């Protein structure tokens, strides 16, 4: 294992956070001046993250709904009980899992390919590296609008291209077809998320000592073998980190899919977050929507915990 890379912990740390070599031993109790210094940073965190979160969790146990002069009552775990028997929610959850897992896996595969390529000594490498970052620079709403044009059944460039090379004859309505809508948005998800995966993997690749690969080459290992036995194990912590982060992001994706399909057709692309949004802001059931939010957080944390534990164990 590389000595400069800390193993990821249960809460996803920023990728490859360097640890100072000479950490001072911690006192049992933080002293006053440290608290004073932390306060300015803590206030916004408490105000804008912790407080809304706590309020959201509280809402999940109430029957809060929209309206003027509505009495909100505490209903205990009733929202969660309703959630368990809500077929639509589970359908949406399943869609969310399919989406998050496929986007994360494909992002990793595509990002790895691109990172390996950009790690080579290519001419104009600086340009290629810059271009690879373009999707990252675009706000999700713009990406959504752009891809809606690409997928447009009559005027879209995708159908036009497919027609030109003779693959299809009619128009495919990518975003409104029950069977292709989900794959179509997954492609967009991969496209948008690739840059940060690529850049993190590229950073990781540059940390792999050249000597190791050279040594393997001298020992007669081919390109594939070098990748599998030298590069990949070295990259493992980076892969674990970026995959976990990507999974969380993708599970919580909202803006992109909202712009592309609004969850249609017939709910086939309704990710859990879109469902919660509808529940809260279209139909006005705030309490129930908050319960969905809490349930999603719980499931994401569980999945992550299991995944990270396994990864950490294998790395030891």
């Amino acid at each position, binding site marked *: 294992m590389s000595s400069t890379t800390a193993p990821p912990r249960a809460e996803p740390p920023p990728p490859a956070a360097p640890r100072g070599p000479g950490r001072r031993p911690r006192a049992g109790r933080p002293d006053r001046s440290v608290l004073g210094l932390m306060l300015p940073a803590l206030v916004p965190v408490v105000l804008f*993250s912790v407080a809304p979160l706590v309020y959201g969790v509280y809402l999940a146990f109430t029957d809060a709904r929209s309206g003027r002069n509505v009495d909100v009552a505490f209903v205990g775990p009733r929202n969660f009980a309703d959630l368990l028997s809500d077929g639509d929610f589970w359908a949406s959850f399943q869609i969310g899992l399919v989406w998050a897992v496929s986007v994360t896996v494909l992002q990793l595969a595509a990002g790895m390919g691109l990172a390996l390529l950009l790690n080579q000594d290519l001419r104009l490498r600086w340009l290629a590296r810059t271009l690879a970052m373009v999707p990252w620079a675009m706000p999700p709403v713009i990406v959504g609008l752009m891809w809606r044009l690409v997928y447009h059944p009559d005027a879209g460039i995708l159908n036009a291209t497919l027609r030109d090379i003779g693959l299809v004859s009619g128009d495919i309505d990518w975003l409104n077809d029950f069977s292709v809508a989900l794959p179509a948005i997954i492609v967009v998800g991969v496209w948008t998320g690739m840059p*940060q995966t690529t850049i993190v993997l590229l950073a990781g690749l540059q940390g792999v000592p050249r000597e190791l690969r050279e040594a393997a080459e001298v020992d007669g290992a081919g390109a594939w073998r070098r990748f599998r036995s030298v590069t990949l194990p070295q990259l493992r912590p980076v892969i674990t980190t970026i995959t976990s982060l990507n999974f969380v992001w993708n599970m919580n994706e909202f803006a992109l899919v909202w712009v592309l399909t609004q969850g249609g057709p017939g709910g086939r692309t309704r990710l859990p977050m879109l469902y919660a949004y509808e529940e809260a802001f279209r139909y*006005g059931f705030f309490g129930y929507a*908050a319960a969905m*939010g809490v349930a999603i957080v719980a499931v994401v944390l569980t999945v992550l915990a299991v995944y990270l534990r396994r990864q950490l164990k294998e790395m030891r």
Partner: protein
Amino acid sequence: MRRRILPLTAAALTGALALSACGTGADDGPVTLRFLSLAWQTESVEANERLVAEWNEANPDIRVEYVQGSWDNVNDQLMTGFEAGDPPDVIHNDSPALAGFAARGYLADLTGMIPEELKEDIRPEAWETATFGDQIVGVPFLQESQVFIANRELLEEADVRIPTPEDPWTWDEFAEASEELTDDDTYAVAWPLGNPVNRVLNLSLSYGGTFFEVDGEGRATARMGEPERAVLERIHDQIHTDRTADPGTVGMSGSDPLPAFFAEEYAMVQVGVYARQQVEEQAPEDFDWVTIPTPVGDTAEQGAASQTLSVAADSAHPEEAAEFISFFLNAENQVDLALGDWLLPTSQQAAAAPELNTEEDDWNVATASAQNLVVAPYLRVQGFDEWKNRVAQPALEEYFSGEIDIDELSERLETEGNDVLSRYH
């Protein structure tokens, strides 16, 4: 890193804002009203802006600020605005949305604030679309009726009688004419059924199909009997049995089929009256089109909703807002608004205006269809929006694309539908 907004956090924030926001407090200076308008056709936006400018010139004490909104997201926007206690003062919307907002107490009761003259000028059937309980929560001003636009040449070639408002087709005659009009490279009808719910429900009234029963306490249940099935089955038959309607248009919405209609792939296309504008603008020079009324069943009735102007209950100046609405929607101005959107005015004086009764662009046919508009029964249903999006929309899509039959459709509209509706009891 990409920024994410968790709806959870957003929900929490909205709630927090609702607690902390309160009225702006009256001051003595000129009053400012925000007017959220959803006009989008060029002529209509121009008419809206011009009327606002006229008002501001005549009433320096009540300044109206024009805010452009969009039909796509207006209800989400309003919901957050209402919850935060800071909605626009004057709100443009349509009656299906009003029902839900009115039930939650977001809209001001305008009953005592509308001048007698305006009250009498607007048709009573239109007032019904904006009256919930005993409260008038909006002033209805534009209505949409359903029509067909036909290629006159193709109808004449096939020797098919062209129906008029006085002598419309029955559904049977419509089916026969469709057979005549269909040949190897032309379908008789294009039914764009991408967003079918409101339209199909409105048309079903010709056989008395109401789809819901509402009890004395306002609790609704979904119901699928013979009257409800009639129009659904006739449309379905055209697509899947008679093959007189193009199955390819089932996923389209609104005016999507127009280009193929101009290319003579269909003889008729089913649209709202406003689509005449696109036909007029986009049709080839020598294209001869005619607007024909929808077929009659037991009656010629169609369900209708209205576009409305409402005042937010949280507005600090409800009376001034009502005054502005009364000016904005007087008969003279309704003529301009109707012309701008190619829709039908609710004002009877406006409907009599010569501009709205010429044969040019078939305004006479369009305006005549207003006589058959009655309030759509679903407007009284709490939870209709969710029933529509969660249950009816996907179920109807599957029905019209031939994946399920009428019995399964009825079953879903009732069983799944009542699950949804029971949340609102």
